[in-house]
């Protein structure tokens, strides 16, 4: 490794730190279920660094995409041309996802609670919502069948809530509901990766805990954005700042997102 390239940079945005944290978390992973946007960029950055064998799986039915431009949506035709395999959604959800071939899924949502459960359905009452959100798409079965789930979201108080308005996709459920996870193959949410910090669930209560705060973000700033009494892991540490190399790859991926090498 080039020494200059492995040096820490201090010239980066919170969103770049979030993407780089997600890319690092994909070290060694072979299959990731992903949408477009930042998670897509994180996956492409991971391919060029810590996960050279990483293949992207899209719910639209695409496996092993080699897009020639930044995909505009998960159904972009550039994902199809040159892919390894393009299948019906029945096969994608049945054989790839439910079949257990997805190691990691990146998910997001409008709200998340302390157990990593996600809401992407409504704000307010389901029947008379103040905001109607998109709904599940494939998120419920992704959360249930991907081997592991990484949540990627901006850290904001209105998103990190004490109680979800609606539980769309199960994380670790609540303690009283935990028994219902018996039929869920996924290990559930492992990480919540944000622009300010990274959280995991490595405690017996499967409760979100701070494990790594990004440089320049104080514990107070983080706690402020969370609607419950946040746990802080004993081993909580400071996130390693992006290296020059990581930053240049992420910026290159953003300019030309999706193009593989």
């Amino acid at each position, binding site marked *: 490794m080039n020494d200059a390239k492995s040096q820490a940079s201090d010239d980066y945005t919170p969103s770049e730190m979030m993407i780089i944290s997600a890319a690092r978390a994909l070290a060694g992973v072979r299959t990731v279920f992903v949408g477009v946007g930042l998670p897509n960029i994180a996956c492409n950055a991971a391919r060029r660094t810590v996960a050279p064998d990483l293949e992207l799986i899209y719910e639209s039915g695409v496996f092993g995409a080699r897009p020639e431009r930044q995909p*505009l949506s998960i159904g972009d035709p550039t994902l199809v041309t040159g892919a390894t395999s393009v299948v*019906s959604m029945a096969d994608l959800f049945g054989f790839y996802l439910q079949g257990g071939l997805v190691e990691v899924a990146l998910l997001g949502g409008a709200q998340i609670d302390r157990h990593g459960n996600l809401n992407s*359905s409504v704000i307010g009452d389901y029947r008379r919502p103040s905001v109607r959100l998109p709904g599940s798409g494939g998120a419920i079965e992704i959360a249930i069948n991907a081997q592991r789930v990484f949540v990627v979201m901006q850290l904001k108080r209105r998103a990190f809530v004490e109680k979800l308005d609606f*539980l769309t996709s199960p994380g670790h459920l609540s303690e009283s509901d935990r028994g219902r996870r018996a039929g869920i193959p996924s290990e559930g949410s492992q990480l919540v990766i944000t622009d300010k910090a990274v959280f995991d669930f490595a405690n017996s209560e499967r409760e979100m805990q701070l494990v790594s705060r990004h440089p320049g973000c104080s514990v107070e700033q983080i706690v402020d954005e969370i609607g419950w009494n946040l746990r802080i892991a004993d081993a909580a540490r400071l996130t390693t700042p992006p290296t020059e190399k990581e930053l240049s790859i992420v910026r290159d991926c953003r300019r030309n997102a999706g193009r593989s090498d």
Partner: protein
Amino acid sequence: MADKLTTMKEAIGLYVRDGASVCIEGFTAFICFAAGHEIIRQKKRNLTLIRMTPDLIYDQMVAAGVARKIVFSYLGNPGVGALHCLRRAIEKGSPAPLELEEYSHYGMVGRYIAGASKLPFFPLRSYLGSDLPGVNGRIRFVDSPYGDGMVAVVPPLTPDITIVHAQRADSNGNAQLWGLLGAQKEAAFAAKNVIVVAEEIVDEATIRSDPNRTLIPGIIVEAVVHEPFGAHPSYVQGYYDRDNEFYLKWDELSRDEDGVQKWLDEWVYAVADRSEYLRKVGKETLERLRPPSAPAAAVDYGTYR
């Protein structure tokens, strides 16, 4: 071989009745806006609109007042944002209240499969722990008779009419698609009637030269419509790209209810058919959307005599 070629006007007039359940499938691609606009133009009413991703097409149709209910799994403008007309209908009951029946993607696919194969239910590993079964009683759970726990099930979905857009079809309705296959095959086999809309009408011999590529067989098809660029502003693999400028423009203009009605007046009600719509879109735009070639490697089936 029956010749089922007809016009969109006739096909919609004949097969889409007021009160019918209508499924226009195609995941991000192959979205048959030509059919959706004709349904609006013919002022159909009280339809149940079925689609995994309502997309702009159902946003327009709901704004035009054709729908009573939608059955869906993801309400969004793909890669852009929200569907403002649908949000207004759901959040404010405007222009009219809209009944919702909501699933996940795989739940919708499973419903099509159960409908297509006349099964009482389709089992899937989903919904455990979610609030969705609490608001949709059609999502249920079954115990495995092998003693290994519980699995979610969804019931069959059998649209009165499914409309599928394809790259090519013959006049009997044998249709071939490539690219994102979505759930068109399942939705077509599940339907009581199927309309195939195609970019190109080809002779039977073209279809028969590659029988594995036939996604929809003519035997389940009632009508065939030749409608080049019929999926604009969505795309057809190898034929044209998504007109993303329109998807972005819709995000702006659809925030305003009056703006939507003006758009419908200008682009749907005031045009007679798809040809006129395409003339309005303009050759320049259509040409810009045509992709350079990327041919598939040759395949040979061999002659056996």
